[in-house]
């Protein structure tokens, strides 16, 4: 464990200051992703069940009004489901760009070394070159790790919102039919 920590520390030292920005972005990205999955697996089923129960219990007289209220609630639900996915995608776009920034700063260091030593000292150039390439790689890896989950979350959220709208409107239709039947009798 200590050895791994040492290796990662060395890796960070080789990559330069941009690595810390990439690490922060990676932590933020995965916080959002994990929160989303938590929401999908544990929170959303409860919320949806509560909402369904409320609509089944409630007896609205005005069908039009009920539809509007339902539409508002579904919209809120969709916003909750898909809301932070936009932020996740932003972070995923951000990661390779941060890596590119690290590349540029590393190249600048390489040029500094070249200007100072000339081309005769590849050993001194090596640190600059690794500083240029390591942030690129880490940015790409972080972006790749988040890409699948962002797409999955996007589809999952929109699908659930659609299902929720369908289910709620069905409840309303059943209640409305029931109401009309009772009214006709």
């Amino acid at each position, binding site marked *: 464990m200590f050895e*791994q920590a040492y290796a990662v520390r060395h890796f960070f030292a080789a990559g330069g200051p941009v690595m810390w920005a990439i690490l922060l972005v*990676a932590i933020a990205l*995965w916080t959002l992703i994990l929160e989303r999955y938590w929401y999908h697996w544990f929170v959303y089923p409860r919320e949806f069940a509560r909402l369904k129960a409320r609509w089944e219990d409630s007896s609205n007289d005005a069908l039009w009004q009920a539809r509007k209220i339902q539409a508002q609630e579904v919209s809120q639900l969709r916003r909750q489901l898909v809301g932070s996915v936009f932020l996740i995608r932003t972070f995923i776009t951000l990661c390779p760009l941060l890596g590119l920034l690290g590349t540029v700063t590393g190249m600048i260091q390489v040029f500094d070394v070249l200007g100072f030593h000339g081309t005769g000292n590849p050993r001194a150039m090596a640190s600059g070159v690794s500083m240029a390439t390591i942030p690129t790689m880490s940015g790409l890896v972080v972006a790749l790790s988040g890409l699948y989950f962002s797409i999955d979350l996007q589809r999952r959220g929109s699908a659930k919102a659609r299902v929720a709208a369908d289910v709620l409107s069905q409840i309303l239709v059943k209640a409305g039919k029931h109401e009309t039947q009772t009214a006709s009798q």
Partner: protein
Amino acid sequence: MTASWRFLAALGPATAVALGLFWIMTSLVGGEGREFDRAPRQPLMNFIRMDDAPRPVEERRRERPKPPEEPQAVPPLPAVPTARSPEPQAPRLDVPLPQFRPDLALSGVPAAAPAAPSGPAGPVAYSQPLTPVSQVPPVYPRRALMQGLSGWVKLTFIINEDGSVGDVEVVEASPRRGVFDHEAVRALSRWRFNPQTVDGRPVAAYATITINFNLEN
């Protein structure tokens, strides 16, 4: 309220995931992480140069051989004193020799005529200045020309009665052998000299000559 709690709770695992990602990257790079495992297993090899004693420095010094000066004229060789063997000190015997007179009748046998003196027994030294009557210049050997060598060849030869050159032999040469010898012999064999005369008659004479091969830039 619950949403922000969720974010806070997710922060910890997310940090773990991010660090794990970075650890995977580290092993992707193949840097320090693997060296920890590999280092103790590999036997370390170390080569130390051990000298018993400081060896004395060998120096080779090369000196340019001095080309011998061209002899203007071969001086007449002094008479070589022949080594005279010491008188054998045999014990003298005082034995009375028997007195006898051989009275052989040989008066009838014709005595052989004394051999007429037919010139000198061997060639004499050449006493004139060694200026050839006709001279064929030696060709510089191609091999020496390419290597940039210069040198000399010392030769002895016999000037015959008719002035031609014969019996050429290499005495000394520098560089040692084979570079200039052949060419020097070949050239010298075609030269012609004034024959040595003894009492107005031409005789064979021997002489020594040094042919220099100098490379001019």
